[in-house]
């Protein structure tokens, strides 16, 4: 399922990142975010704004459309 369909605060495992924009993928790789890593959404900005995610012990922010491209499964 898409990460956006998950619950806030719930932890999931990343299954597929390949639908993301290439630069986003590269930057996420830099941050250690790859398939198999656990991820959770902490906050969500209003009006379709960005998400704040917790992954690999750090907080990052991504746009909703990018978060939609992250496929996850129950951890």
């Amino acid at each position: 399922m898409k990460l956006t369909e998950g619950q806030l605060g719930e932890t999931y495992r990343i299954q597929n990142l390949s639908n993301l924009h290439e630069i986003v993928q590269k930057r996420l790789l830099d941050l250690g975010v790859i398939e198999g890593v656990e991820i959770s959404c902490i906050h969500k900005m209003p009006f379709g704004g960005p998400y704040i995610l917790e992954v690999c012990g750090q907080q990052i922010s991504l746009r909703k459309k990018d978060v939609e491209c992250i496929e996850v499964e129950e951890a």
Partner: protein
Amino acid sequence: MEFALFGNPNTGKTSLFNILTDSYAYVGNWSGVTVEKKVGDLSNNKGQLIDLPGIYTINPLSKDEAVATEYLMNGSFEGIINIVDASQLLRNLQLTIQLLEFGAPMIVGLNMIDVAKSKGIRIDQEKLEERLGVPIIPIIARTGKGCDRLLDNLSVHQLKTSSIKIDYGPEIEKLIEEIMRLLPSYSKISRRWLAIQLIDANFVVRNKLNEIMDLSLVDYLIKDCEKKIQQRYGEKSIRQFLFKRRQQFIQSILADCVTKQSVNKKSYTEIIDAIVTNSVFGVITFLGLMFLIFKLTFDWLGSPLSDFLDGLISGPISGGMEIILEALHVTPFIQSLILEGIIGGVGGVLVFVPQIFILFFFISLLEDSGYMSRIAVIMDRILELVGLNGKAFIPLIIGFGCNVPGIMAARTIEHPKERLLTILLTPMMSCSARLTVYSLFVSVFFEQHKALIVLSLYVLGIVVAILLAKIFSLFIKTEESIFVIELPPYRVPQVRTLLRSTWDKGKGFVKKAGTFILGGTVVIWLLSYVGPAGTNVEADESFLALFSQWIAPLFAPLGFGTWQAAASLFTGFLAKEIVVSSMNVIYFVPDGESLQHIVSGVFTPLSAYSFMVFILLYVPCLATVATIKKETDSKKWMLFSIIYGLMVAYTISFIIYQGGRLLGIGQ
């Protein structure tokens, strides 16, 4: 000896740099504080230290990151200091491994051991040292703990070169060997490292090699190998495969050296974020904070201090100087120069020093606390609508201090076109120099609502920038914009760092008063003192008046069509503070009546507001224009920034003044 400082963004590189060197650089709690390399002398006089922009890997994405890679390849350093965030080892060691592969002598500064400890992370330092093959010194860069030892080790030990070698698997190892055979043998850089970086598609390395050799065969080999990797391991890309190989290696090290107990307490970062990044309160909190800052700057703290200084300068200092000059029988010409030109003009700007410093203190506080990147998140949705991303907001906020570093900070934006847009918009941000003009006018016309009026100007700058972004993006087509930002944990700012960073921002203002503003003011004074009829003419008969009368009618529809306003706007191109000192000189009345009184006769609240808006938006100052030229590498964009600024300023001031008149407000 020259040492280079490498590390991930936001791991405390700049803090360490400040401790190890005598000089002082800029610190902030957000990625991208350093966008250009900085050189400082080590405090033990054993050499120099180069502070480089933070990078996650040697393979850059944005322009500031490319600076670090280029330095690694072309710089003349003898050793590397790699600063590592102890609480984020898995990620940080990726860079460390690549630096070790590069083969330069290295020492690792294991930073933030206190943060790591509070997260329940314990690191066996000796074991880690053994596994990496280079010395490791635990430090806390923010407080300076352990940094002396790091410095001692720089000079006493010869830094070690690690013999670490990662096995990337048979396919890649074969590819590396093949590429190494193709590379020129005289290269001073490790050929294995070059080969690995080529495989990783590092464009800086590629461009450099492309200058001296044909890379088509190398490209073919890499493509071919990537296919094999994809088939055999099911990996998406060769880059990810390399990353995973390194990560496996790092994990094997960490399994040996690091133990982690889970600590289950809610960190204060989470608690603050629950409010600050709350979907409803986020924007309100931001505006509220800004309002509070202006309230403090103008009303509660700044104004009394400024008034006190004003009293001092226009009273005892000016009066005392007059007595001295009288006693020396100085000619009226020199007397007028000193009293009206220097004390009146430059003093009129110095009066605002307390306010500027207070504002800088709070900007430093915001920067050091970690709030900046949260603002980027809050603003992203709005900026996305106009083809930018939230990260563009950080250069804009930096621009509140001074537009020049704001434009520099735009380097962290990955997309070249978004970066260009951000550079063009930064001059719309109300820098501290413009604050002097607001201070003068709000104290005359808007006594009751100082903070609100100033906030409205800052917000207007942001709104205009956002609207312009929309218009520009129709012409400068931005592709899909990218927004990935790291949110560092909040930190309680160190008082020492805060004060120094405030001083560093503010001292430029004081220095400018003694040089640029003084020089400009003396010239203005001279032009207003002499005229076709000789010296000591009536102001209206001076050369300055004669020149300015030509352009003054242009500003009549904006509500300030006087030659005095035109003249001071003209000088404002050099530096915006000169607007205030020019007005002080031009409107000087010998009987000690203050500028405030005169201004209240010449302007109405409406035309004053229109004037402030014009000052906010018109031509960027000389230093900003020069920086735009340098950063965009184009004269065209520089001229564009001047012209569009004028047009926008004229249009908006016109709307405000004429609209206000129609509605009958503030006349």
